[in-house]
Structure formats: structure tokens, C-alpha cells
């Protein structure tokens, strides 16, 4: 069953740890519970969004560096 990864925060979503680095994970990659999927920047902080279960990243629903709302779906893990 596919699980939704939701952003707990409003802010800007990043898929990379820094602009010159690779993305944390690609669609199709396997992830383990606790793996970092991306960052949400708000209040001069970067919050790590982590996988809540083991699985495969089916899809990212939010582009790198785009605005995100609290509760918005970031990705699906199957």
C-alpha cells in the first residue's frame, strides 16, 4: 500500500542537502524508515522530512525549491 509523506510545516521544500549536492533520493529508489527525503525551510531553520517506513519512492509531488503548505503531500512511498 502506498503511504503519503506529508509536510508538517509550511515553507520552501528542497530535495537536496545544498544547491551543489545531489538529491537525497530519486523516484524509484528504496528507502529505509528514518531516511531523509528532503528539507523544509522555515523561520531560518531546515526541517528534515524523513521516511516513516521502509519502501520505494513512487513519486515526488513537489518540485525542488517550491512553496509548500503544512499538510501538503510531498511524496508517496510504496
Amino acid at each position, binding site marked *: 500500500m502506498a503511504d503519503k509523506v506529508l509536510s*508538517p510545516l509550511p515553507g520552501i521544500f528542497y530535495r537536496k542537502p545544498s544547491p551543489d549536492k545531489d538529491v537525497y533520493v530519486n523516484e524509484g529508489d528504496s528507502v529505509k524508515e528514518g531516511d531523509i527525503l528532503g528539507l523544509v525551510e522555515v*523561520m*531560518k531553520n531546515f526541517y528534515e522530512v524523513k521516511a516513516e517506513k521502509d519502501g520505494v519512492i513512487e513519486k515526488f509531488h513537489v518540485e525542488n525549491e517550491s512553496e509548500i503548505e503544512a499538510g501538503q503531500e510531498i511524496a508517496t512511498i510504496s
Partner: protein
Amino acid sequence: MIKVKNPGLQTTVQDYGRIGYYDVGMPPSGAMDKYSYTVGNLLVGNDENAASLEITYMGPTLEFQQDAFIAVTGGEIPPKINGEAVPMWETHSIKAGDELSFDFVKKGARVYLAVAGGVDVPVIMDSRSTYTLCGVGGMEGRALQAGDELKIGNDKKQEVKEGTSLPEEYRLDFSGDNEIRVILGLCSYRLTEESKKRFFEREWSVTTEANRVGYRFKGERLHFVEREQPFGAGSNASNVVDLGYPIGSIQVPDGVEPIALLNDAVTGGGYVTICTIISTDLDKMAQVKTNEKVRFVSVDIEEALQARKEYRDTVEKVRQFVAQ
């Protein structure tokens, strides 16, 4: 004791504020949304200056190690006791061993957790409020961390029955448009007429740089009137000779992005302040989230004072409701 299992994003101890030290450069800190903070204390029978937890965007997970009465007020970050949703704006009894946690933020940006007796941290310069930039007050001058233990104090005045629920008319609703009322000045004369007009015409969007210190907005560049640099002022057109910054004042460094200075902001400096948010609407400002849009509305001092009077009348009605 209340044990912090997970601190949330930025949870700080705040009371009404560190009032009376602005002249020596100490901002007041304190609850950003004063109404919600005050009502929270009333709902648990506290002294109105008792310290609460200010929770921003993402709630903490707290384990109560003693019985207590609590209330959660403010925006909508739904609280849960032992995983069961409980209403906001209501007095709840929580037992030793119970866990308080929160769901995702639905509306607004901040909620207040009031605990009967208040959160007991050392009083520094007449206040328990946390001023994180200088590491003063609250829990060791910082936001809560996992493993912290909070002592419950004695700032309680009266008993309030479990299940006391604030009538709808006294609750805040954050689903409306974000109109923030301001009074023009102190240095609005420095803006061109066109920029002054544009400032009030357009919507401004809250950037990710929005916290207890200030809110930064994106919109368009504003322009200043040509002038000869006065002695003592910086060279940028947005500079003036240093002045005290009113709380809620809005400055526009280099004309690029307006910044509203809030509870933890610097108390003075050399930027033009074009207007000041009226005191009642600071509460509203504090509940606007990053990426949301606001519009500034120019009002006169009479309207601001009327709004303050209505605010005080509402708080008085809540006082009477709770005392019944």
C-alpha cells in the same frame, strides 16, 4: 513536572513579556498572540501573566508526570491526549502519565498551552519569557529540547471546572483574509507617493524568514524620495538618523523587502520605518504563516484605540465567563 519527549519546531516559554526595558535595548519578547495567550491562562484559572508554552507550526510531545489542568488556545494545531483528539479553547484535566501531542497545523501559526499554575522557570528582569537571540529567560534562554523537564508553578488564582469551553464568539477565526491595520509613520515621508500607494494596494507574501523577531515580505521594490544624506544617517536611501523602532514597525531596507519587527526584534536603528502595526493586529500578524498573503490597511489613531478598547472589552467578557 512535564517531560519534553519531542520539542516540536520551536516551543518556548512565554508570559506577557519583559516590559519596561525597551530603553536599554531589551525587547519585550512574550506571547506573540496576546489574546490567545491570555484566554489560555483564564481557562485554567491562572494569573494573567503566568508563563505558557508558545508552540509554532509543529507541536511538541509532552509527558505529564503529575495531574494538571490545561488549555490550548490560538491557531489550530489540534491537541491530543494519549492519541485522542481533544477540543481547543477548553479546560482539560490531564493525569500523571498522560501524553499530550499535536496534529498538523490546520489554521494560524501558533497555539498556547496554558497549564494551571503556569510554567515555572526563573524570573529574569521581571519576566519568564524566552528571548532566544540573547539566551535570556525561559528554559535556559532557548527553545525546548527533548529531555527538558518543566516545573509547574503556583500562579493560580481560581479553580476552573474541567470542560469549561469558551463560547464560539470569543474564539479567533483564522480563515479570513489577512488584513493588517497599520498607522502611517514615523518616516513614511521618505517613500515616494507612488510607492506609498503601492504598499497599500498590493498583497505581500510572507517569506520563510518569519519568526518571533520579525516577518519579511515579498512583493515589489519600493522607492524613496531623492535626498541629500543627512549627517548621522547611512548612505542608503532607506537610512535615516537612528531612531527607536516601535514594536510592529515596518521597515524596508534598500526598498527591497519590507520587514515587520515583532516581539524579539532590535529596539532601534537607522532604517526608515514606514508604518506601525496597531497593537491588536500584532496578534493577527503572529498567526499568519509563511507563504500566506497579507494586505496592509492604513488607519488613524482613533480607530487603533477603538480596536484596543474592543479587545479589552472582549478579554473582560471572557474573564466574567470563566468566573461564573
